[in-house]
């Protein structure tokens, strides 16, 4: 990617933090996705040493893919189609390759984000130009193609995880989800449990069903669940109206500009015979009413880029695409097929009023290119799925957020940047958005941490990424949620935005073992059969023990209270930063919830020493059901800050 390494502090002055020694190139990131375009420069292996001796994976040949396409960067490439084909019939080889080859682009984008090699002069039509690199640019990549045109089927996903464990990957990156079902029914959760037991960190996308609450995917506590935020880069494109007003939007259109005057302007809803003609769906625009004009479309139902395709096919010269209340002011840029700009809800409402009331509405679109140092950033993306955790409300999810809006990374040579069949353009890099993009950022950062701390468990790595995540901008103001324009909460940003340069040295970590997770399953009152489905073992919960989800040594707190009451939680921290005296600081945003911690000081004499503390939440009054209050618990020795978010919900 370009810009996000700088945004995350991974640029040169932090190179000492992540020594590019042998270990940094011995970590293998496994990516379950749509495969890989091996010719992408992001998979150059220049400067990489021999394949790690621990590696047991391989390269599978198939349509348009020979084993020789692998190298010392792309060290593994497998594909899994039996489950897909059993349900959907044979892979349609006219559309996609029955091989690890990525004919979609998504898998090349995510795997190059996580661990792509440095590529100088990368850009999409000149947008977002710079040196592209993965988060762990010296890590190795192994791709497991499990997603096909018709979706990603769990029997294939399990087979890929089965193989990735055999192959000995260190990190698994899965930018996919399937709604919310109990862990013992969720193949991603089940496969991730097995991977976790082998010391593999599993990083997953939180889902793009925001801004509604309780929309998260991949919430198993042994998975690192990643939401999406913006970075400090934008692609402004101005909507110019005939009344002299201008409104800022975004666009990645590259091509002949519109003439230097405003053009007749029409609202799609008035140029269609369809009830929802305002959405610019296929075949819904009347060419006679659209030809030679700028068309205003509303977001929703069909893909944004398809709306542009529909306007162009009907003879429109340009498009102004307006957000709805659901997307608010979030601006996701697209490589439209015609001059187009996407504007936020507020501007959209004003522009719609103009086009519907002005007797002779005219408009134009001015593409402005790339701007950086955009503030405030990060802002939580509207589409980023949010908590509370609908499967286990007592586990706070998402865990954290990472860059997921307008991310440039590698792309397939089979499809254009819009992914539309009519898009004959071919690009090496593309700019797309989603928690699919934030997940591999964290996968790559986890690989970086693993290369520096090979002895750390997946839970320790996730803990380091969470307790060092930031929740405020440099000026101390809280991170905003684009949906509301107000501060986001831990239900949106989890522990905050990932900060690799501090995660490398977190001071204390909250560790978790398989037995802890088995205790968690007992706390859920799982039957022996359900525990066996998840853990592949005959585990008997101790009848004399009272298990509680609250006992899971998680680096964050989700407290669900019925009315008022006193709740106690115990946590155990391990000193990975060596000796030190840590003092606690608690914060609660409301006096109705008092947070106290005993002891208030933890003195560590040596590295890897463990100490426990107890948190008491005293909730003094009962609030309306489903209301929330937030706070934090921070330990500091003056050098490290080990922060945990607290979310309190009245049930």
């Amino acid at each position: 990617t370009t810009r996000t390494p700088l945004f995350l502090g991974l640029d040169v002055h932090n190179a000492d933090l992540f020594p590019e020694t042998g270990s940094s190139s011995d970590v293998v990131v496994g990516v379950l996705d749509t495969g890989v375009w091996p010719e992408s420069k992001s998979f150059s292996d220049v400067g990489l040493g021999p394949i790690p001796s621990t590696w047991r994976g391989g390269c599978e040949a198939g349509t348009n893919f020979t084993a020789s396409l692998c190298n010392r960067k792309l060290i593994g490439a497998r594909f899994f189609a039996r489950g897909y084909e059993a349900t959907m019939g044979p892979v349609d080889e006219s559309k996609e390759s029955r091989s690890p080859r990525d004919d979609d682009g998504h898998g090349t984008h995510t795997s190059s984000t996580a661990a792509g090699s440095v590529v100088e002069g990368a850009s999409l039509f000149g947008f977002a130009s710079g040196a592209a690199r993965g988060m762990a640019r010296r890590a190795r990549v192994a791709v497991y193609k499990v997603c096909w045109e018709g979706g990603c089927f769990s029997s294939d996903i399990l087979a890929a995880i089965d193989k990735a464990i055999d192959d000995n990957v260190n990190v698994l990156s899965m930018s996919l989800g399937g709604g919310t079902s109990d862990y013992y029914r969720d193949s991603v959760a089940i496969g991730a449990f097995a991977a976790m037991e082998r010391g593999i960190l599993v990083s997953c996308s939180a889902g793009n069903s925001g801004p509604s609450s309780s929309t998260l995917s991949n919430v198993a506590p042994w998975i690192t669940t990643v939401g999406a935020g913006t970075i400090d880069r934008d692609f402004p494109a101005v909507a110019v109206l005939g009344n002299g007003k201008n409104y800022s939007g975004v666009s990645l259109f590259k091509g002949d500009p519109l003439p230097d005057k405003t053009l007749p302007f029409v609202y799609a809803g008035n140029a269609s015979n369809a009830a929802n003609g305002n959405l610019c769906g296929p075949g819904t625009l009347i060419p006679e009413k659209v030809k030679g004009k700028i068309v205003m479309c509303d977001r929703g139902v069909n893909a944004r880029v398809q709306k542009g395709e529909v306007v162009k096919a009907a003879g429109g010269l340009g498009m102004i695409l307006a957000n709805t209340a659901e997307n608010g002011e979030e601006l996701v840029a697209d490589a439209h097929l015609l001059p187009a700009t996407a504007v936020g809800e507020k501007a959209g409402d004003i522009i719609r009023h103009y086009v519907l009331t002005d007797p002779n509405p005219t408009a134009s679109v001015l593409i402005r290119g790339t701007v950086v140092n955009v503030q405030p950033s990060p802002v939580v993306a509207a589409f980023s799925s949010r908590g509370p955790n609908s499967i286990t409300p007592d586990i706070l999810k998402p865990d954290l957020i990472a860059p997921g809006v307008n991310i440039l990374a590698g792309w397939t040579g089979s499809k254009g940047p819009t992914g539309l069949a009519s898009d004959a353009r071919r690009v090496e890099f593309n700019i797309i958005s989603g928690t699919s993009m934030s997940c591999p950022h964290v996968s790559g950062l986890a690989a970086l941490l693993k290369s520096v701390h090979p002895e750390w468990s997946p839970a320790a790595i996730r803990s380091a990424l969470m307790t060092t995540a930031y929740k405020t901008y440099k000026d101390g103001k809280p991170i905003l949620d684009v949906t509301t324009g107000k501060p986001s909460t831990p239900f949106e940003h989890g522990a905050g935005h990932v900060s690799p340069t501090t995660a490398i040295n977190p001071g204390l970590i909250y560790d978790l073992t398989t037995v802890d997770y088995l205790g968690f399953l007992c706390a859920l009152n799982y039957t022996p059969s359900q525990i066996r489905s998840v853990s592949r073992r005959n585990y008997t919960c101790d009848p004399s023990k009272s298990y509680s989800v609250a006992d899971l040594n998680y680096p964050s707190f989700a407290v669900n209270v019925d009315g008022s009451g006193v709740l106690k939680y115990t946590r155990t921290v391990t000193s990975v930063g060596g000796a030190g005296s840590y003092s606690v600081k608690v914060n609660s945003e409301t006096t109705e919830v008092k947070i106290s911690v005993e002891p208030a000081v933890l003195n560590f004499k040596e590295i890897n020493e463990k100490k426990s503390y107890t948190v008491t939440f005293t909730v003094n009054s009962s609030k309306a059901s489903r209301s929330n209050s937030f706070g934090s618990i921070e330990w500091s020795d003056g050098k490290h800050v080990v922060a945990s978010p607290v979310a309190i919900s009245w049930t």
Partner: protein
Amino acid sequence: DGAQHATYIVHMAQSQMPSGFDLHSLWYDSSLRSVSQSAQLLYTYTNAIHGFSTRLTPEEADSLMTLPGVISVLPEHRYELH
């Protein structure tokens, strides 16, 4: 008839494999044989889960569930890219 079939993920209790089998996959295949003449093993799993995936009718899935060593027979799930 194909319309009735669906893919199922079958979790097995590995430790309950009868002594007469050398390989789990042979045990799985034998279990499958006892509920369906035509069903094939799509995949056998050893790390992610202990078990296999296969195409069955709902009735065959119910019958499989009654066999010794079968922990669960769950319908396949379709996931989407985020």
